[in-house]
């Protein structure tokens, strides 16, 4: 859509700027402040320049946490996006079934994240959990608290359970927004189910899928609460992702300087990732 030039539109944006300044900009400046100082206590601080940044960039454990994070995010995205679209395509388009499907789909999204962790903590236990007991009955020695691979898989399944609905709901909304005329045209042209998907549905889903991809990218990259409840980052460090590592550093050991430097690098990495995806995915639009 064509947009007109209007400098006064800034006034409409002002309330948002005020709120975001208070809830994001000022705190972020505080983090920047921490990142270049060594803080011993109230009023006792020394300017240390880029020392914390150097320390963080050479931290081996951080490198492995970063690698784990990338692996987790990539796995989550490559499962949830196709699965979400498939579910949206399989959903009924009219009738009473629609409401029921939407309600069931939306359910996991509205469960507090620590409760999601709790649900899977219970479900995955071999002694009292249905899922854990079932896997055990298959003869697999499954224990998410002791076996790193099991812990990692449980987290992956939990995340798919938790978040695929978001992709599915967005894709479903996108599908419903395609005018009937498009399908009629495809029918006249004799397109099969795959042709319709490839030439009509997928291109029209681009907008919502961009949103879905960015949301899942950001959220899986900062995942904290669910692993914290389920595995606590263990066994060992097998499921210690970046936010876990950061929280341990900032709140556990109270290393404010390194934690702040890490925060800024962390933030910049997410920013860069999202910017690349955002630019690539919206390259064709008028904006």
């Amino acid at each position, binding site marked *: 859509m064509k947009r007109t030039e209007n400098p006064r539109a800034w006034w409409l944006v002002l309330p948002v700027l005020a709120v975001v300044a208070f809830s*994001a900009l000022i705190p972020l400046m505080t983090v920047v402040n921490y990142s270049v100082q060594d803080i011993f206590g109230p009023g006792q601080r020394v300017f240390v320049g880029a020392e914390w940044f150097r320390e963080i960039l050479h931290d081996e454990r951080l490198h492995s946490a970063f690698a784990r994070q990338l692996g987790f995010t990539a796995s989550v995205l490559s499962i949830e996006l196709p699965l979400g679209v498939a579910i949206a395509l*399989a959903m009924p388009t009219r009738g009473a079934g629609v409401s029921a499907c939407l309600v069931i789909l939306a359910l996991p999204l509205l469960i*507090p994240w*620590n409760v999601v962790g709790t649900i899977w903590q219970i479900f995955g236990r071999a002694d009292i959990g249905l899922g854990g007991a079932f896997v055990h009955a298959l003869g697999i020695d499954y224990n998410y608290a002791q076996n790193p691979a099991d812990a990692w898989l449980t987290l992956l399944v939990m995340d798919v*359970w938790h978040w695929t609905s978001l992709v599915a709901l967005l894709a*479903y909304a996108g599908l419903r927004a395609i005018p009937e005329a498009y399908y009629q045209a495809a029918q006249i042209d004799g397109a099969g189910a795959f042709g319709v998907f490839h030439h009509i549905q997928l291109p029209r889903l681009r907008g919502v899928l961009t949103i879905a991809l960015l949301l899942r990218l950001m959220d899986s990259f*900062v995942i904290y609460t669910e692993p914290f409840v389920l595995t606590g980052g263990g066994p060992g460090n097998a499921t210690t992702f970046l936010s876990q590592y950061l*929280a341990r550093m900032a709140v556990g050991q109270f290393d404010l300087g390194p934690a702040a430097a890490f925060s800024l690098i962390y933030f910049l990495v997410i920013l860069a990732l999202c910017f690349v995806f955002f630019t690539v995915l919206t390259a064709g639009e008028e904006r």
Partner: protein
Amino acid sequence: MTLHKRHVGLGIYFGFLLLPIYWMLNMSLRHNADILGSFQLLPLVPTLDNYATIVSDPSWYSGYLNSLAYVGINTLLSLAVALPAAYAFSRYRFLGDRHLFFWLLTNRMAPPAVFLLPFFQLYSTFGLIDTHLAVALAHCLFNVPLAVWILEGFMSGVPREIDEMAHLDGYRFPRFFVTIFLPTIRAGVGVTAFFCFMFSWVELLLARTLTTVHAKPIAAVMTRTVSAAGLDWGLLSAAGVLTILPGALVIWFVRHHLAKGLALGRV
């Protein structure tokens, strides 16, 4: 035939979605000794004791009220500031609009863990710690950008002719916005409110850090009481089930609206 296969697949997926929730419901209806003592697919001796404990103990149920309070404030606040901004982004070009739009989104990407300590300091300075407002404001960090984003999408779907017609008819902007434009995108407003509610309701890290007693969210009450009681699975499950209820209710009330809203007014 393909239709049939699709429905089977959908059914299996829904089973996968519902089973873990059912299992928690099952646990919540049993005593802890019973849970640890035997494995039952259906609770043989169902009991509501766990729920009774929660409903009758103020330290439990006040957690629910606190959560609802800050979620409500946050949703209203996010909508109020995001509506005009989304309109500006969808209709006008102005200096730095693209950069501003992207900068807003970056706040949605910020790891909440990054903001823990600065938030605590900032809100202490303003005496906001342990108030509902503090959590509501903190959640604006991710909800305001999201609201702007969703609303901008909905507004861009409304033809400009509506704005121009109203202008020709002599409507001034505020009146046009409230009486004509808002009703046109009310589905979008509903969806946005839903998403704000959702992300504020499920967040724990910030909510727990910024509250101590009077505004403590239910999710934090859960973690504390559980560690003190030495993992009472039944009670934990009952509290978990009760945190699902408000969400389920919200979905239930907006379900028609949600389908319609998500589909940009079609269906």
